């Protein structure tokens, strides 16, 4: 089984990337965890460019989603929602709609913020968009608040409560992907 992690923030020291990397430590031994690092390269969605071949960064995104059995998205919160660049990438990934690689794909959403709310509104909006795309959005969530206090100087998650929540979400995601892996095999 393979999980794909997507961080909605672009900066190198992103708290959400750190949250994804913490999740990667929590997957079962036989599960691969790939962190997708191509978000910044995805061009603005333009229907005139939405043909075959797809722009290479888009083709890579679609292929990464297609070969993953489940996806974990970690999002920050910008203006009470999730970042435009992440929405843009999902818009590309959702086309053509009827055969898009997120269709029926188990997806979990988590989020980290430096404030007191842990990107909860961003997560809610992201779940809505993923559902509209046709993904199987699982219910578990993690809202990591006051992010700088939750990681040590080596970017390791040091909050045990958050780690437990994250482990539970990862476990639910793996469980949701099991039937698909069985069918593929």
């Amino acid at each position: 089984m393979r999980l794909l992690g997507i961080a909605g923030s672009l900066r190198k020291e992103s708290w959400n990337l750190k949250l994804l990397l913490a999740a990667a430590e929590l997957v079962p031994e036989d599960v691969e965890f790939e962190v997708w690092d191509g978000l910044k390269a995805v061009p603005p969605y333009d229907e005139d460019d939405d043909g075959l071949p797809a722009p290479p960064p888009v083709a890579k995104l679609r292929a990464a989603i297609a070969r993953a059995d489940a996806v974990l998205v970690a999002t920050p919160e910008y203006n009470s929602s999730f970042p435009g660049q992440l929405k843009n990438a999902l818009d590309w990934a959702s086309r053509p709609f009827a055969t898009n690689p997120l269709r029926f794909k188990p997806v979990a959403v988590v989020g980290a913020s430096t404030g007191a709310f842990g990107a909860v509104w961003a997560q809610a909006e992201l779940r809505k968009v993923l559902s509209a795309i046709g993904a199987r959005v699982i219910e578990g969530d993690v809202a990591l608040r006051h992010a700088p206090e939750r990681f040590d100087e080596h970017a390791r998650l040091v909050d045990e409560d958050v780690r437990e929540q994250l482990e539970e979400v990862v476990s639910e995601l793996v469980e949701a992907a099991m039937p698909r892996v069985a069918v593929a095999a």
Partner: protein
Amino acid sequence: MNTILESRTTLTPGTWSVDATHSQIAFAVDYMGGTFRGTFSPFAATLTVAEDGTASLVGSAPVSGVRVQDENLTAHLQSPDFFDAEQAPEISFRSTAIERSNDEVTVDGDLTIRGTSLPVVLTGTVGEPAEDPYGGTRFSLRLDGTIDRTAFGLDWNNPLPNGEPALANDVTLTAELYLVRN
């Protein structure tokens, strides 16, 4: 002259299969002030009527056969927001009781959508069997019912600008069946 009509309380015995070309399973649900309609094609249905008039009706349709007038909406209906074709690929119906009173018929049964089985009551009309040009015997059966889609886990909605939900919960189902004796 008085004509005494025989009261009909049972269907005609036999095993009857649906003539798919001339039959339809349709649904309608209020959406944004209008009505959103669709059909299921293909589907299968069999009516079995014993000599004593005891009858049963069973039917099924693959979710992959849901038809609406936009392929993106078809894809959305098949997604986990609605029918979840991957985990619940079939819709099915099995009657528990069928009653007839002349040309009116009431069918009680269990409808299974998205893995949830709930009792439904369908009412409608039945025609008299007639010989068709192909050497067979057929009759018509029309059934209507209303279900609450959210009871089956199809609970997607989106608010309109006035805050009201865009999609109604009640869905009307209509089965227009032409049944041919096997």
